[in-house]
């Protein structure tokens, strides 16, 4: 049974990576052109993704006792505090500087966008410093 979530995570990841590539989010230039108000496509990507995920997150727990191949539906944990908002502010500064988010840094490698490897390594380094010195 332990391999079941791994299988579905892999399948969902393939879909996710394909969607990120199709929507050009793996191109930092496209993300930066949104942040500079030159192409608002990112809002369509976000809007489309939230709409479908909203349906799944809101309907599935009401219609099903438990996930098809799992024990229980998890909840997204978010709390309103200075870490959540301060971290988001720092994330945004980095995002505006490089145009890369955590997902596209991974999916972009599959599409042969090798310079994203630098961003990927840097994201891992940032996550390590956060956990090592600011984790709790």
């Amino acid at each position: 049974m332990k391999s079941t979530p791994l299988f579905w995570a892999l399948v969902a990841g393939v879909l996710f990576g394909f969607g990120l590539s199709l929507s050009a989010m793996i191109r930092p230039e496209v993300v930066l052109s949104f942040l500079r108000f030159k192409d608002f496509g990112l809002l369509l990507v976000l809007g489309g993704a939230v709409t479908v995920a909203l349906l799944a997150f809101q309907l599935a727990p009401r219609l099903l006792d438990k996930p098809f191949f799992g024990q229980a539906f998890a909840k997204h944990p978010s709390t309103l505090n200075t870490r959540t908002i301060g971290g988001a502010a720092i994330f945004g500064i980095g995002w505006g500087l490089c145009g890369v988010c955590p997902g596209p840094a991974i999916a972009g490698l599959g599409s042969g966008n090798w310079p994203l490897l630098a961003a990927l390594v840097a994201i891992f380094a940032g996550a390590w410093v956060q956990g090592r010195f600011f984790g709790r």
Partner: protein
Amino acid sequence: MGQFFPNGIAHYLAGGLIIGAAVGLLFVTTGLIGGMSTVYSSTWSFFSNHPFFQWENLVGSREWRLAYAAGLVLGGAIWLVWLGAGTWQTGVPIWQLVLGGFLVGFGARLSNGCTSGHGICGMASLQLPSLLAVLTFLATGIVTAQLVAWMGGH
């Protein structure tokens, strides 16, 4: 419309719907919430004995998160082979990728979410803190990107 979407809208919408379907599929099959930034912390649990990285939430999810990340690479490769017009490399300077990436990793993990964690999963869970996080990183992202362009950067 054209002035806001000079590169069209179809691929943006289709890609967004597929991303939503991916997060929805993971949730309906396994009950898991598929934000992307946690894998950057949970993978360190293989290498670091520091208590933060040995937290059960990270250790307990590190395997499926890696499978999810492997899927992302595979999905990007399938797109390249199927629809991509050859490989393409970003022209964003390496110092921006490295410095920006570091802040992205640090900030997303401090905030416990990124564009997919807060932006997609958090908002789809109707979480007010996630909405505020999204508005915050949109604001600082827009200011930063405009400043970089104003200073003549990429």
